[in-house]
């Protein structure tokens, strides 16, 4: 009977493709838009994602996210180091600078000043040069995509110079970083140097990065740091979620993407559902004939569910493939600055669930007609 269900489903190719298209349309919108949304949320926390060597991030207790920084006095570092259970604690600067290239281009950039001694906070993957090159005078490392923004249409080469706050910086390395929320270049340098690249401020300490001693509970250490220093201390993952939560609550991003994803679900569901429903209605006399010939309701349910799952699986596969192709093509072509965006497995699972819901809802609406069909209706 599965063979028969398949034949009935694919007999009218236009309708069959229409249903598959509907599901694929819903899938591609749900998968693509959800992935961009997740990608954007990841970008809001890109610097947090890239610095994994520390267990705890310590900051001013009124800080709400990683971008709006309330700098702390330098002595905060020593207060944190004094807390029992801290293996090490280092400084981290994060702020925005205006960079001028030797060609005269001006670009806003994200400046990350890492610990001079340990270089904790360095970029995760170097593509040219080495992290240790930061120890060279005026040395900075620029992320590759940012390099192209600073020096458009020019080959990547080390030794180029930048001017920030009337101070010279020399590009001694390039790296791969998680793309930031604002599409600014990311410039890494030593903490002691970073504070000279920004306009003069009384306090410059953005964060204190902390490593817990072996066997020390991170949550307990966070509580202890907060208690003893009156600062905000969060584990890496808590700070990540804290930052994302800020953007979820204070921007229109979730609503806008939510609307698109919901529309994809509704429109895809409507196209697939309506076409599948009409397909079943048109086949009602055949289902009636099958009933008269001795096919019971369970086998008919099996046939309709098989048909629904088949179009669901095909539409889901095509939709997901299209979404993945979109990200691959945009990544390779560099168009639209969607670099680093991908479809997480959770989005695949969510899309699969949505598609399953769509096809099951469509098949249930159709099944009602089939199940309540009197076999005697074949004579009408």
């Amino acid at each position, binding site marked *: *009977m599965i*063979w*028969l269900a398949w*034949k*009935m489903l*694919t*007999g*009218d190719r236009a309708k069959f493709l229409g249903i598959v298209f509907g599901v694929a349309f819903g899938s591609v919108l749900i998968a693509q838009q959800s992935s961009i949304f997740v990608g954007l949320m990841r970008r809001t926390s890109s610097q947090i994602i890239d610095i994994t060597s520390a267990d705890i991030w310590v900051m001013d207790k009124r800080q709400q996210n990683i971008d709006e920084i309330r700098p702390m006095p330098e002595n905060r570092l020593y207060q944190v180091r004094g807390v029992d259970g801290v293996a090490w604690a280092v400084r981290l600067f994060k702020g925005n600078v205006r960079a001028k290239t030797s060609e005269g281009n001006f670009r806003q950039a994200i400046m990350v000043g890492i610990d001079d001694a340990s270089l904790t906070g360095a970029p995760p993957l170097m593509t040219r040069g080495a992290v240790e090159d930061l120890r060279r005078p005026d040395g900075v490392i620029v992320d590759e995509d940012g390099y192209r923004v600073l020096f458009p249409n020019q080959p990547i080469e080390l030794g180029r110079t930048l001017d920030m706050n009337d101070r010279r910086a020399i590009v001694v390395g390039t790296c791969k970083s998680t793309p930031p929320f604002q599409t600014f270049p990311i410039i890494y340098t030593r903490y002691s140097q970073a504070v000279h690249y920004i306009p003069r401020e009384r306090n410059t300490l953005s964060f204190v990065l902390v490593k817990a001693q072996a066997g020390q509970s991170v949550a307990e250490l966070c509580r202890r740091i907060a208690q003893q220093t009156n600062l905000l201390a969060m584990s890496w993952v808590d700070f990540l979620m804290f930052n994302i939560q800020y953007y979820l609550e204070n921007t229109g991003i979730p609503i806008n993407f939510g609307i698109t994803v919901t529309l994809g679900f509704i429109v895809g569901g409507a196209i697939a559902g309506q076409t599948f429903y009409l397909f079943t209605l048109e086949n009602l*006399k*055949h289902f*009636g*004939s*099958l009933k*008269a*010939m*001795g*096919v*019971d309701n369970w086998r008919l349910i099996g046939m309709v569910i098989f048909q629904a799952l088949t179009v669901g699986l095909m539409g889901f596969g095509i939709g997901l493939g299209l979404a993945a192709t979109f990200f691959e093509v945009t990544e390779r072509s560099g168009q639209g600055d969607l670099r680093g965006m991908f479809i997480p497995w959770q989005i695949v699972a969510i899309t699969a669930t949505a598609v399953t819901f769509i096809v099951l809802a469509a098949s249930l609406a159709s099944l009602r007609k089939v199940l309540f069909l*009197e*076999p*005697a209706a*074949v*004579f*009408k």
Partner: protein
Amino acid sequence: MIGPAEQFAATLAPPVPRAQAAVHCRGVTKFFGADETKVTALAGVDVDIPYGELALLVGPSGCGKTTLISIVAGLLDATAGEVEVLGANLDTLRGSKLVRFRSANIGFVFQQYNLLPALTAEENVAVPLLVRGEPRAQAVRKGAEMLAEVGLGDRRKSRPSHLSGGQQQRVAIARALVGEPRLLVCDEPTAALDARSGQNVMQLIKRIAVKSDRAVIVVTHDSRVYAYGDRVISMSDGKIERVEQPLAATA
């Protein structure tokens, strides 16, 4: 050649001994709706249809023909009365037992053929065997053999849309007979066909469907095919008006 209706000559049919009745109905009543909307479709039908005969069920629209064959075929429950088909009391068959009984014993021919457009002729014929659980290759092979019997061996790979109305009805007849049913129920098999195709279809039913261990019931409006019946059962207002035998059948 079968003559027009006015030339149809018949005599009253003799009663069918109970042992020879493939279909035995007594006091069969069927109501649809309730209270003010209650409609009496069958009002105490008594009828017997013997094995080895082709019985025509005739009468004006709304007289209860379709309701009667639906009940006899186990597709509809009677409100009251006794219905015995092929020795089985349909009242005692319910749910899956009734479905299996239908699948094993009853073949159907529909007015609009009801062939699956996505299947070839031989695949369409194989459907009742697939329903019974036969392997596909075997079912399709038997379907092709049955098609050859109805004279469509050369069209076995054709889809219904590439067949004429008469050919489609022959495929439907082959489909109804492929499972060797002991009761064949045909609903207006000639209604959608021109006169010549209708005659051919009736000749085919008469030639290959009627067997000593099988009863055939054909519902028809078409008076030109009356002479093909061994027994013509006329209905009116939900009752059997008379049961006749065409003179040709008595000869």
